[in-house]
């Protein structure tokens, strides 16, 4: 065990058991998985992406590129979890990834020997020929050898939630500046949300031995968090990562509600998606330490200096017994002090600079090699560090024995979120780092994210920024003073050190196995822009998105291309800042709840009566009703059609769009919306209507019924209900706002049933004995409002099937009651319920165009309805429908098709060729839009759009179906197959 006997922010009274690669260990409450592994002296935790090199724990945060593990087992297994960010819980199970057969002995590490072919862009070069082998051999091979963890492939057993929040100030990050800002705003009465990725709030205060107001930094942070928690106007969100900035002051965040538990508590989601609208946001995300580039810098035991300090101070874990420090700034020296304070020997401090910092005075330098203007040039050991070779300013090399190397290349402000809006960061000569020049509206970086690196300046900056927000919102800021700050670290320049003349694998991007020589190779091959460099070398890709590697890589590229780093620039980041689970974006919307489902009033009745349902938009519609003994859907559909045409059938048509158009100018508006005339429609009559789009093509059809001079009731197709409502609102609000007309959707109000067939009148008369339904009294297209058992109903004599038919509507609350009453009244007449499939068959038999024909590319003329276009008035689409291209007699127009051989099957989508024509695109003269077997006729029929249309009736053509490899000779016929004279529906 390398647990220190004292210190740390862990709870030693709460030991936790966990398993890594099948072996059991223990840690404490407050540990991360990485801390607990280190405490158990587990150094080797992963294999690298490409070369399968042994990797350890590099950092102590979410920027970790190496220590990626699969957390949990079975369906809950989550690959690529960062051990450095996983809170330890009792019973945690984790395993290593990307190794075979085991982590300690990985045969695929042989890839290293083949490393000359695994250089930058290797897959563009090496596996090119023969091309046929790519899919069969190369790609599967590469996918197996290179990669990250694997998904379980099992359905996710957990649930995900969503919440919307609104605040005056969102503080992203609860380090020194974030806490100071939240405290200022909270005390000033602002609505504040403070979110931090970590399980504990305090940021670097938890990891450093600083002091504020006479207390340890971590204690001060705990006190601030306690005070903030007491304010009703402050929301604290630990374990919550803000991952994106969006337009309109919106922020996306994921709260890991249950990830610190073995599994979510009953009813609780695993994670919660937060959509936060914040009038102001402060990016207090701190800074990320840069690695140094030297051979062997990826060996287990080489760690970021700040991570070494974090393991010592926060987790009371010694990541090694003897350390060497390699630094280009004061941070390495501070880590050396932290190590010595914990009783761990420091074998060497190597600084790239020429002078020792003031900090060094506090270090015990006996038994410690100090090399200025120096570098570590080699690391001994493979699965763990065994020593380091140091070259000093004079070129002299010394070897030291150590099992830990702490490196620090300076600090990069963590500004990723601030570049979400396309703001390219700019180079600061003063800080040797990229900073945000411009930020999204209402968003500003603060503290070390803004380059205020010292504790004093970060705290002050947090107070300043929050005070400004309070003032902008017209409130009075609380007086703030934070006294007696004892800094850790130093204030020296934060230099960017780019090494030269290194030999051996010196990693720039640990996660993608991109080395310094890869960057040079890419530059020499002409990939000199940072964006191209990223795509070519993969530097900055995958789960860490280059949080550690980016700047070093760009520094090397600048060096290679003889540019300054300011000229080379850096990339912008896009959401998510850290990876998020797709499940949390989907939230409740998965499986059968993927989208809302709409049920009609008699849905349950249909289900109880054998309905098979089909999705029509969000609606569930009965497609057919299975009777006992029916095993084929066609049997059910054929029976429903025959029963309806031979007797009577009933169909739930409640899903049709229904709109009340009301007011003194209702008639005027409908005249302008429909191609045909509606102002002349008498009260108590319905009329079929056709709507065009303004470009002259058909938009939708339906009926409009006039119930009073100023009351029309409009129906639309199911598919276009919302679009027509929007179209009507556009016409009355945008085009003709001067009209006094109101409109509202009543789709949900009315349950509507179509009763069709020669016996439909008799059924209705039995249901409604007091109404005179004789043909003389209630003609085709008549409509009226009546009562049924005291409740208002509406009756329409309209037909879609071509039969004598009625539609009856009632308030949907009584829809099922009415349907049951009709079934009862219809029983003596053999009434059957029919579904959308029979409805479709009957409308094809009757030649009624529907969605397949009104497909947005057809004109009224194409559908045989050209005469409906009124010449007496203006209407939407009138002018454009007259264009030569839309009135060309050569356009494809609607006809019917019947097979020469009555046994042949016609299928939708097939193409029509002139008899004897070669089957190629240029010869296609039409296509089938709808096809069905007609039980009425006893053979397959179809509706088709054909060049020349009606002119070709009687002509034999070939129906060519390339997809299903069939050729069927057909005869063009009139689109109306059944009762062309319309005697049935008028009888």
């Amino acid at each position, binding site marked *: 065990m390398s647990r220190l006997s004292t210190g740390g922010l862990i709870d030693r009274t709460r030991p936790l058991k966990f398993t890594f690669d099948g072996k059991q260990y223990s840690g404490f409450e407050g540990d991360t998985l990485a801390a607990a592994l280190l405490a158990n002296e587990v150094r080797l935790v992963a294999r690298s992406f490409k070369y399968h090199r042994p990797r350890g724990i590099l950092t102590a945060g979410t920027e970790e590129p190496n220590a990626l593990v699969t957390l949990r087992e079975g369906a809950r297994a989550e690959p690529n979890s960062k051990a450095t960010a996983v809170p330890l819980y009792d019973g945690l199970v984790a395993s290593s990834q990307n190794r075979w057969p085991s982590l300690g002995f990985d045969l695929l590490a042989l890839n290293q020997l083949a490393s000359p072919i695994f250089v930058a862009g290797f897959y563009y070069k090496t596996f090119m020929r023969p091309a046929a082998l790519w899919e069969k051999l190369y790609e599967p091979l590469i996918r197996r050898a290179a990669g990250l963890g694997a998904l379980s492939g099992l359905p996710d057993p957990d*649930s995900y*939630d*969503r*919440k*919307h*929040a*609104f605040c005056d100030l969102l503080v992203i990050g609860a380090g020194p500046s974030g806490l100071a800002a939240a405290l200022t705003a909270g005390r000033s009465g602002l*609505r504040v949300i403070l979110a931090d990725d970590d399980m504990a709030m305090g940021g670097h205060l938890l990891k450093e031995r600083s002091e504020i107001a006479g207390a340890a930094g971590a204690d001060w942070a705990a006190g601030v968090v306690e005070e903030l928690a007491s304010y009703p106007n402050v929301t604290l969100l630990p374990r919550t990562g803000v991952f994106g900035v969006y337009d309109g002051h919106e922020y996306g965040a994921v709260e890991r509600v249950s990830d610190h538990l073995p599994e979510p508590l*009953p*009813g*609780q*989601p695993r994670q919660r998606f937060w*959509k936060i*609208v914040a009038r102001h946001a402060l990016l207090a995300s701190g800074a990320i330490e840069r690695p140094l580039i030297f051979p062997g810098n990826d060996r287990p035991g080489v760690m970021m200096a700040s991570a070494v300090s974090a393991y010592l101070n926060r987790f009371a874990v010694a990541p090694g017994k003897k350390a060497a420090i390699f630094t280009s700034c004061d941070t390495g020296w501070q880590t050396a002090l932290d190590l010595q304070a914990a009783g761990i020997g420091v074998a060497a401090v190597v600084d790239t600079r020429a002078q020792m910092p003031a900090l060094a005075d506090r270090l015990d330098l006996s038994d410690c090699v100090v090399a200025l203007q120096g570098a570590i040039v080699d690391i001994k050991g493979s699965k763990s560090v065994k020593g380091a070779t140091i070259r000093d300013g004079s070129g002299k090399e010394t070897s030291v024995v150590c099992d830990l190397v702490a490196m620090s290349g300076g600090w990069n402000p963590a500004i990723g979120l601030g570049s979400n809006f396309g703001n390219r960061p700019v180079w600061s000569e003063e800080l040797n780092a990229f900073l945000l020049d411009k930020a999204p509206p209402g968003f500003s970086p603060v503290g070390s994210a803004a380059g205020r690196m010292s504790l004093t300046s970060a705290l002050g900056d947090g107070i300043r920024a929050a005070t400004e927000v309070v003032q902008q919102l017209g409130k009075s800021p609380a007086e703030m003073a934070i006294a007696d700050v004892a800094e850790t670290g130093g204030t020296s320049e934060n230099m960017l050190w780019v090494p030269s003349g290194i030999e051996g694998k010196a990693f720039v991007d640990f996660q993608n196995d991109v080395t310094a020589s890869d960057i040079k190779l890419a530059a020499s091959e002409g990939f000199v822009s940072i964006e191209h460099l990223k795509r070519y070398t993969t530097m900055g890709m995958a789960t860490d998105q280059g949080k550690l590697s980016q700047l070093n890589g760009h520094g090397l590229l600048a060096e290679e291309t003889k540019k300054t780093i300011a000229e080379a620039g850096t990339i912008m980041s896009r959401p998510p800042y850290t990876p998020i689970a797709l499940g949390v974006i989907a939230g*409740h*919307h998965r499986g059968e*709840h993927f*989208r*809302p*489902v*709409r*049920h*009609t*009033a008699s849905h349950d009745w249909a289900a109880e009566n054998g309905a098979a349902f089909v999705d029509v938009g*969000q*609606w569930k519609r009965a497609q057919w009703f299975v009777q006992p003994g029916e095993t084929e859907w066609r049997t059910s559909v054929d029976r429903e059609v025959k029963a309806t045409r031979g007797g009577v059938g009933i169909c739930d048509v409640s899903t049709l769009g229904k709109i*009340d158009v*009301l*007011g*003194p100018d209702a008639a005027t508006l409908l005249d302008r919306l429909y191609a045909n005339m509606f102002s002349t429609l008498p009260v108590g009559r319905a009329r079929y209507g056709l709507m065009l789009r303004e470009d002259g093509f058909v938009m939708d059809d339906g009926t409009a019924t006039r119930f009073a001079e*100023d009351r029309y009731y409009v129906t639309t197709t199911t598919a276009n209900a919302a679009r027509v409502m929007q179209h009507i609102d556009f016409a009355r609000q945008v085009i003709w706002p*001067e*009209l*006094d007309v*109101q*409109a*509202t959707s*009543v789709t*949900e*109000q*009315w*349950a509507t049933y179509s009763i069709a067939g020669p016996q439909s009148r008799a059924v209705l008369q039995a249901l409604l004995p007091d109404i005179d339904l004789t043909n003389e009294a209630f003609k085709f297209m008549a409509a009226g409002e009546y009562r049924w058992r*005291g*409740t*208002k109903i509406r009756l329409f004599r309209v037909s879609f099937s071509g039969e004598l038919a009625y539609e009856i509507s009632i*308030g*949907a*609350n*009584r*829809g099922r009651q009415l349907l049951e009453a009709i079934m009862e009244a219809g029983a003596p007449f053999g009434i059957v319920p029919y579904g959308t499939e029979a409805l479709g068959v009957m409308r094809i038999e009757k030649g009624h165009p529907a969605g397949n024909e009104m497909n947005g590319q057809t004109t009224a003329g194409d559908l045989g309805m050209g005469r409906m276009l009124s010449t007496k008035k203006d209407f939407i689409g009138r002018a454009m429908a007259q264009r030569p291209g839309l009135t060309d007699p050569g356009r494809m127009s609607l006809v019917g098709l019947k097979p020469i051989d009555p046994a042949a099957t016609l299928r939708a989508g097939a193409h029509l060729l002139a008899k004897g024509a070669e089957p190629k695109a240029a010869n296609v003269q039409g296509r089938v839009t709808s096809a069905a077997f007609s039980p009425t006729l006893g053979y397959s029929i179809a509706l088709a759009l054909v060049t020349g249309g009606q002119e070709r009736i009687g002509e034999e053509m070939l129906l060519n179906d390339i997809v299903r490899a069939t050729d069927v000779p057909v005869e063009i016929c009139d689109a109306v197959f059944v009762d062309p004279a319309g005697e049935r529906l008028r009888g």
Partner: protein
Amino acid sequence: MDKVDFISRRENVSLAAVMARKGVTAADIGGALAFEVPKEPAYRSGSGLGLVGTGPGTWLALSETLDNEWPSALEAALGSLASVSDQSSGYAMYRLSGANARELLQRGATIDLDPLAFTAGSAATTVISHIGVAFWQLDDTPAYDLVVFRSMRESLEHWFESVAASL
């Protein structure tokens, strides 16, 4: 829905869409109905009626008196001031009550329901879980009434149940 103790179905409420004619103001409507009719998204009641502002010049009218003639009395009172359309069957209606009610709605609606922003009398027509809803706050309990298109009530109830389980 039985599993959620702070949400109950409200049956037997008559509903209608009230749409002001051209040039008619909320004050004109209020004059005819003898109570202050909101011109903003808000809920007001009087004369045995409740009116929820759903848009400029449009309201959802509510009456708890069951009446086969609904909404003819309302139409008669408004005369040529407004068009009226019966919606009694168009919506399912719920009463949500207690601290959990606000939290539940905030999980769903992308509007600010903090007492600073949404108080007794406030109303909103919006979306919860991709489902169109309208709700209004009745008092500071807080209690809310909510309507959803009847065809989507099962989907909304499923959402109610799954969110309520986490509260």
